[in-house]
């Protein structure tokens, strides 16, 4: 019952706030937050039963034999549920301040609560179809929140793009479900895992993994289904923090970890996930280096970090990949909420070129961002250090030296773009009053950055952040720094926690170099990345000429990076435009001039029908049609009279 409460309290909140939003007014925020908080506390109370042998299981409905739906809380879903409700609660509280005064304050919390419900459905489900239901519902919540300001065409387009790309993922998962049902006739995780090696041969296991991975790539913004994530930053910043950083986009990591027995059984699947994850990690990080919108920098960083996680769980380093999810949830939420404080205070300015010198104006935001940057870069002692090290070393231990190299290199790039962000935003002189052209910012509204657009639409009101926004950020600082110690050393509590979890122990470990040496290498590369960022953006000389230098960099960025490798343009051309063209060709040519004309031709060639069709204009047709009806009536009457009575 407690589990049902955890699951349904956010849904109740969503419905309540949606239906009675106008009446509740400013109470919507506190009510929505309280329900998520209650859900978090209930989840904590379930710790014991979730970690007990056999976990916690609640059957719900059954469609037919083998299609049984239920909830289960085991160690993996427990971790996710705690993050969803815990970090979710903090972000709800933050939103009370951030969204204060918005016309649709209550609707915002309704959607946020609904999101938490959807995400819990995803992680608590005990079967593949329930998982897909959660998968679809989080996509819907994401759609609602990306398009939250639905009078903006850019937000509306971004929302649709995100939804449609995610349906591509859903369809991939449906393919996996076909295979599972075809082979097993059942949909429960337990049935699936029991079938590995028996009803599911290795080829089938690989195909199931491919289907699942399409879903994972779409939801977790893996190459080549990643292009919706940067656009998703159209949503309010707390949404970016909760959905597009901490929780929903990590669903792919959950998926692979959940299906660890399948991944462990298929070397090809591990190869695929590892390579795509690595590719995503490095290509996202490279794009992070050329962005100017603070949220888009963080978005590409999210894409890159999830690439790490997917690479980790993909190659079989399950505990490491899941641990990186945990630490990332804290430090990325921290970074987004810190960015939100800045955006809020600067009246929706998101372009870092128009910032600068904010260290002294907003010391708390600086502290928050600094801690987040140190954590994401993997500075020893901070949370990201432990988890990223786990993932990177895990690739080597699983026998993927190339992925290891990618992981190490990406760590350096990460340090570069994150410190670039920090220096440009917080150091040097404030550039908010500098002319846009002097910074090389194109004034046309169709650029990749939409920050200016926001600022123009709403009346500029500089205001200090309400204290309420600082509290969750301050709380997040603690885990951002310290949570990593959970996974310190060989027999760490984290590794103990997942000992014996289905599929987690299967990964082979045969490292080519000791872990300590690897850590040293990573740190050296990170230091190099930092040094480069410092030399370019942090030295006294660089800060003095910041305006000219930023202008230079803006103008000289390679177009291939500005356009994010032209993925969007290619998709627009190959899929969107050609599908619409085909559709309108069917509509304007095939339907009227081929099919309809063909039918008329056939009709005219037979004399009887020909009369009917040719008489459309003359009105004679009425006579024919009525005589047809009359004929039918006569037919019936004849039979009825001639035979009916005579038994």
């Amino acid at each position, binding site marked *: 019952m407690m589990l049902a409460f955890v699951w349904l309290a956010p849904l109740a909140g969503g419905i309540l706030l949606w239906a009675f939003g106008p009446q509740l007014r400013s109470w919507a925020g506190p009510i929505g937050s309280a329900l998520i908080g209650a859900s978090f506390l209930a989840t904590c109370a379930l710790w014991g039963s979730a970690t007990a042998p056999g976990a916690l299981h609640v059957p719900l409905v059954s469609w*037919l034999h083998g299609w049984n739906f239920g909830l289960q809380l085991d160690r993996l879903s427990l971790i996710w549920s705690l993050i969803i409700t815990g970090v979710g609660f903090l972000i709800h509280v933050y939103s009370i301040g951030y969204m204060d005064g918005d016309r649709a304050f209550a609707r915002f919390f309704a959607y946020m609560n609904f999101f938490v419900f959807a995400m819990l459905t995803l992680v608590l489900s005990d079967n593949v179809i329930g998982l*897909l239901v959660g998968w679809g519902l989080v996509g819907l919540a994401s759609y609602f929140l990306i398009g939250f300001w639905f009078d903006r065409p850019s937000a509306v387009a971004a929302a*649709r793009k995100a939804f449609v790309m995610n349906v591509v993922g*859903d369809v991939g998962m449906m393919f996996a479900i076909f295979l599972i049902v075809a082979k097993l006739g059942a949909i429960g995780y337990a049935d699936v895992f029991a079938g590995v090696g028996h009803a599911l041969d290795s080829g089938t296991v690989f195909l199931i993994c491919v289907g699942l991975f399409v879903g994972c790539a779409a939801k977790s913004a893996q190459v080549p289904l990643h292009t919706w994530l940067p656009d998703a930053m159209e949503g309010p910043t707390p949404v970016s923090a909760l959905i597009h950083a901490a929780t929903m986009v990590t669903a792919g990591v959950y998926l692979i970890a959940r299906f660890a027995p399948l991944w462990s059984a298929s070397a090809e699947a591990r190869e695929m996930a590892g390579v795509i994850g690595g590719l995503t990690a490095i290509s996202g990080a490279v794009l992070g280096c050329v962005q100017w919108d603070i949220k888009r920098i963080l978005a590409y960083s999210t894409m890159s970090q999830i690439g790490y996680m997917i690479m980790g769980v993909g190659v079989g380093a399950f505990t490491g990949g899941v641990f990186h999810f945990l630490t990332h949830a804290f430090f990325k939420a921290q970074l987004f909420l810190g960015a939100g404080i800045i955006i809020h205070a600067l009246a929706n300015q998101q372009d870092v070129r128009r910032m600068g010198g904010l260290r002294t104006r907003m010391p708390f935001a600086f502290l928050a961002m600094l801690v987040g940057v140190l954590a994401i870069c993997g500075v020893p002692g901070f949370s990201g250090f432990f988890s990223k090290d786990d993932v990177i070393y895990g690739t080597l231990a699983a026998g993927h030296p190339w992925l290891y190299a990618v992981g190490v290199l990406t760590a350096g790039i990460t340090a570069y773009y994150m410190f670039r962000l920090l220096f440009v935003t917080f150091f040097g002189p404030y550039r908010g009053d500098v002319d846009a052209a002097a910074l090389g910012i194109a004034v046309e509204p169709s650029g990749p950055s939409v920050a200016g657009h926001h600022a123009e639409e709403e009346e500029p009101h500089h205001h200090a952040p309400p204290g309420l926004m600082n509290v969750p950020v301050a709380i997040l600082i603690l885990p951002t720094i310290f949570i990593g110690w959970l996974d310190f050393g060989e027999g760490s509590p984290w590794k103990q926690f997942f000992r014996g979890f289905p599929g987690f122990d299967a990964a082979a470990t045969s490292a080519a170099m000791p872990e300590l040496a690897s850590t040293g290498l990573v740190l050296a590369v990170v230091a190099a990345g930092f040094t480069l960022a410092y030399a370019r953006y942090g030295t006294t000389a660089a800060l003095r000429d910041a305006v000219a230098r930023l202008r230079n960099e803006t103008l000289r960025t390679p177009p291939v990076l500005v356009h994010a490798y032209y993925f969007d343009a290619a998709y627009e051309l190959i899929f969107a435009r050609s*599908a619409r063209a085909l559709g309108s060709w069917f509509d304007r040519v095939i339907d009227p001039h081929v099919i309809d004309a063909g039918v008329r031709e056939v009709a005219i060639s037979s004399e009887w029908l020909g009369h009917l069709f040719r008489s459309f204009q003359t009105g004679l047709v009425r006579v024919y049609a009525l005589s047809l009806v009359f004929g039918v009536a006569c037919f019936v009457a004849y039979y009825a009279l001639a035979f009916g009575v005579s038994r």
Partner: protein
Amino acid sequence: MIVSALVLVPILFGLALYAVPRRAAGIAKGASAVLAALVFALAALEPQAPDATVRWLSRPFAAAFHLGFGPISFWLVLLLALVTFSALLVVRGSRMREIAAQLLVLQGAMNGLFLAKDVLLFALFWDLMLLPVFLVLVAGGTHGRTAWKYLLYNLVGGLALLLATAAFGVLAGTTDVIGNPAARVGIGATWGAWIFAGFAFAFLIKTPVFPFHTWMPETYADLPPPVVAVVSAVQSKAGLYGFLAIGVPFLGPEMAQARPLMFVLGLSALLYGAFVALAERDAKRVVAYSSLSHLGLILLAVFSGSSLAYAGALVYIIAHGLFSAALFIVLGAVEQREETRDLLRLGGLGARNPQLAGALMLAALAALGLPGLAGFAGEILILTGLYRAGYGWPAVIALLPIVLAAAYMLRVFQSIMNGPEHPDLPQRRDLTWLEGLAVAPLVAAFVWLGIDPASVVAAMVAGGAHVAGVR
């Protein structure tokens, strides 16, 4: 008694409405809605009602006025009653009385179609159910061409159906066979193929299935919203019901033979409809073409020979009925307020009409197959059934339109509700309570069916024993 009442009372009541003075049209509408609700309650409470049989012919074959519930018809009668109720609530304008009357006649005729246990009776109700729709179109004055196109297409089908029925009766000795698996009728292969062709021709036109569909977009666009809601939701299922109730049990070998052709037609409809829906500007025509696409999927299921897919077909038949009725009712509300259905002219209504936007969103989500709603339940059952029965490629190809459906349904929603408000559009009030009352039961039903379709699935899986050749 009860089953006859389900057919006759709506028809007689509908005809009686013409005696009501026009001044009292509102009362007539209210009374009709109450009647539809009563029909729903009666059918829901008395699913075990005994058959009504009056012997009718004995030469050249036995036939009877035989009505009774079967596992599929029970659900279709309920669906029809619910959709008719919702449609009646949103009937409006100067022709309120006539449209209400025709909706009731339509309900009675279609109840007859679904409850008929005699193929001849089925064929007669088939033609009868065309008339109310035709009369509504013709009486509108401006849609004469559409009306005749609708009637001619479907009467040509109806004629083929009648001829096939006569041949069936002569060869089998009786037409009183629906729902009676014991009556294994022996029809030779040669005649079987012709009889099947006659039935299939009628069913494919009525559904419609590509390439017999060109009457449909015009009919759907020109019919008043309440009537198109019923036609799209329920009348379009008559052919699919015919395949399930007559084709599967009695023409099994012919169904299997026709499978490759039907799969091609079904997949063509599925893809063709989805692509056209992507390009259409008229909101109602987008939904019309989306129906073409969705019903193509059900055609695949009907010809799959898999009981899992049959179960999915029934779930999806009901689901499509619920969400397409909701879509047409909400789009009718939009058109009535803004006086256009052009997606390029509409925009920004959501800001002032949150309830209208919510209703359209829910209906669109069900239509695009959001997991958790009824459309998804039907889709996943059909597709896994197809895959399991060995039709892997059709199942995989059928995944593509799901992505397209997301694109065109969101396009409809966003073009109407999102973006900046258009200052030149008339400003009208949000959803009225009557419109809300019309949409709410449809939404509740497709939410419920999406979460727990077990009772509908059971009707088909248990009924699967009735159906010959099911694995």
